[in-house]
């Protein structure tokens, strides 16, 4: 497996997301809390087909995190990519890890 180093974890403000370019794909990386827990999903909003997911607000329900699209606010589970407002829609997920403070995405 090939791990692409993206940035340092401190480059991501806790409670927000950023967008990374991984082999020409737009990948949203989210850091919900002030720790090393990270999630990676496609940055393309499947409803609007715009590269915006990393700019959505993060929320938590019953211990699970989700992101609400900044355009029309559909919510997606960060761990599974499942859309919480439309069963038929799922965002592609990426494997992500932190190594010595460096954020890496598989691909």
């Amino acid at each position, binding site marked *: 497996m090939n791990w692409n180093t993206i940035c340092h974890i401190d480059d991501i403000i806790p409670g927000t997301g950023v967008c990374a*370019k991984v082999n020409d794909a737009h990948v949203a990386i989210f850091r919900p809390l002030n720790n090393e827990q990270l999630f990676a999903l496609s940055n393309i909003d499947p409803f609007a087909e715009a590269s915006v997911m990393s700019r959505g607000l993060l929320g938590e329900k019953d211990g699970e995190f989700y992101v609400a699209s900044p*355009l029309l606010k559909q919510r997606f589970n960060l761990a599974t990519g499942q859309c919480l407002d439309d069963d038929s829609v799922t965002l592609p997920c990426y494997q992500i890890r932190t190594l010595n403070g460096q954020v890496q995405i598989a691909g």
Partner: protein
Amino acid sequence: MQKQRIVVIGNGMVGHRFLEEIIAHAGNDHYDITVFCEEPRVAYDRVHLSSYFSHHTAEELSLVKPGFYEASNIKLLLGEAASIVNPAEKIVSSKNGRMVPYDKLVFATGSFPFVPPIKGYEGTDIFVYRTIEDLEAIEKCARNSKSGIVIGGGLLGLEAAGALKALGVDTHVLERAPMLMAEQLDQDGGAMLSRKIENLGVHVHAGKNTLEITEGDNARKKLVFDDGEVLEVDFIVFSTGIRPRDRLARLSGIDIGERGGILVDDLCQTSHPDIYAVGECALWQKQVFGLVAPGYKMARVVADHIFTEGQSAETSLFAGSDMSAKLKLLGVDVGSIGDAHGRTEGAQSYVYQNQPEEVYKKLVVSADGKTLLGAVLVGDTSDYDNLLQLKLNDIALPENPEALILPNTGNDGAPAIGVDALPATATICSCFDISKEDIAKAVQDGNTDLASIKATTKAGTGCGGCVQLVGQVLNAELLALGVEVKNHLCDHFEYSRQELFHIIRVENIRSFDELIAKHGKGHGCEVCKPTVGSILSSCWNDYVLEDSHTGLQDTNDIFLGNMQKDGTYSVIPRMPGGEVTPEGLAAVAHVAKEYNLYTKVTGAQRIGLFGARKEHLPEIWEHLIAAGFETGQAYAKALRMAKTCVGSTWCRFGVGDSVGLGVELENRYKGFRTPHKMKFGVSGCTRECAEAQGKDIGIIATDKGWNLYVAGNGGMRPRHGDLLASDLDKETLIRTIDRFLMFYIRTADKLQRTSVWMESLEGGVDYVREVIMDDSMNLCETMDRDMASLIESYQCEWKTTLSRSAQLKRFRHFINSDDSDDNVQFVNVRDQHRPATVAERIAITPVEA
């Protein structure tokens, strides 16, 4: 079997009520109903006629739910007056030659204004006050007039005077009796009312008779009084009582009272059993009822009778009606209950008079002191509901009845009659005859807020006087049912926005993490985060993109621009009051050209640049700020702009400097966050070119200062603003706006525009006025201080952002590459461009960016 045919003549408030009653009884298809309506529009609310001047839409006054007539299969003949009835053949003929046969006929022809035959009473610039057409004529005339007089100082006359004053003319009221509202008030109450009204700038002339009206020397009309004095005004409105419109009934051979009015019995039947009369055209036991509540009762009696005829069911009887009234005339509270004059034999009275505060209250009690017969309230009607219930339900008076009207100075306040003390049958809403148990039942059926109670029972939707009481019954019933009223923000906070605001202020909380750790649970969501972010900003006005606040900001705030459908942003620099210099325009044009931005004048009198890539935003703003612009907060829940008309500096009609004021206000309030976005409007004269009455804050110049309207809205659910105060000087105006904004920030719900907020406040604009102008809650000093601190801490967020290098990194599209977003593509349209649709994008993306 052929359906029974009902014909109704007249489509006023009572005529319409009859239709609602009969449809409610029998459904849509039971009768064949035809209605003659002489006016060009369906039934409207004459009780609130003067509000037409502030709102100007007949729709708002309309009493008819859209589609009611169609859905109910009622044939409505608009603008068609009935001309004769033939009771022998049971046919009504109309002016247009139409003939309509009936089985049951209802007269609801109402009344006409009585104008005394004073010499010179016919002619131009003389009006009556009854229909929307009358109001339109008065308004048109007032535009070319400096002064006007209302002849007649009764209830309607004072309504009319209020309308004249609102139209900005020097207003006079003339009353033949020695006091105003002689029907409802006693001498001292009338005197107090006169004094209060005079203090408002209306000239009261009581105890005078007009002998003659001639042409004036300095104004258009001259009135000569019986005491030899004269008065010159530009126009005259007569409000000298009403007379039943009984002419058609008289011509048709129906019995009429000696002094007018169609004679009816307790079933509201006329001399012909199949012909009824209801409302102001009817004479019952020698009385004509000039209020709407008795008319509504008659409508119900007739509907009952027609429906139950031939069945064994019981029908209701008309038994007179309570003529009590609570009103606000020219801003003065006036209440009159029952026997206000103490005419009942042996009646005794208690009087409380407070001259400095201009309050007068009187109780009239029975000879034995055990029951309330009547009351007069001027300047303070807070006891009205209480007293009316005592009277209507014959509740035994407490030992010291005077305590009912004395101010609450010590520990033992007035013995309030809590709603619990009222019998279930107590009438709460007399317009619609809704009892306490009707409301309780509606609550039990699941109507747990005021709006749905009003919608289901209609209680409080007539004159509106009982709304507070309806609210109390609702709350008592909810309490009794053990319903807990939840207004939690979301799963993470068991508090309302208002409560969180209070907590954040009192505990000096500065971040979301601190708040959720102390008072919430979990990690927040897209509901509570922006709400708390907004409150923090409203309280402390910190830079919204501090690291601890960044994750709280919604779509637009997080990159300080409005995100468009393709992920690009709009850029809108502030142009206070819509003012922009040629140099400024050139700078905007230059930026638009350099960054290839679609350019449009927005709805808020500013220039919007669209299609800016996120990574270009900092450079774009650097150019704009260098040219002297600041952020326009077009992305924020904050003040957007003050829309202005050109005003007195250039406009030849202008009365006040609307642009100057708009610029000043926009600069004063820019930047800090409010529960929802806010728009201001400032018009330089009553032509209202800035459409200020459709704004959260609307200001209209008058020749004496500024009129302040609040809680207007355009958008999805348009609402005209409520007039909060008139003729303010600039200092008072600004102080009042300061407090209005602070009060809104403190108490509104999340994402609640001022219009919705205002409608949620019990007491509405009157309540707001008490809080922010009369300081009834002792809040004004704090609110003034808070506003001063918000204004002082203003910063241009884009300027701050540009000064922080760490921030600038956030604006790149990729954190690990300088490439742009290749999904952002444009197609040409009208010499500019728009975002490509997905299909268009695929078609033109073979070449990788």
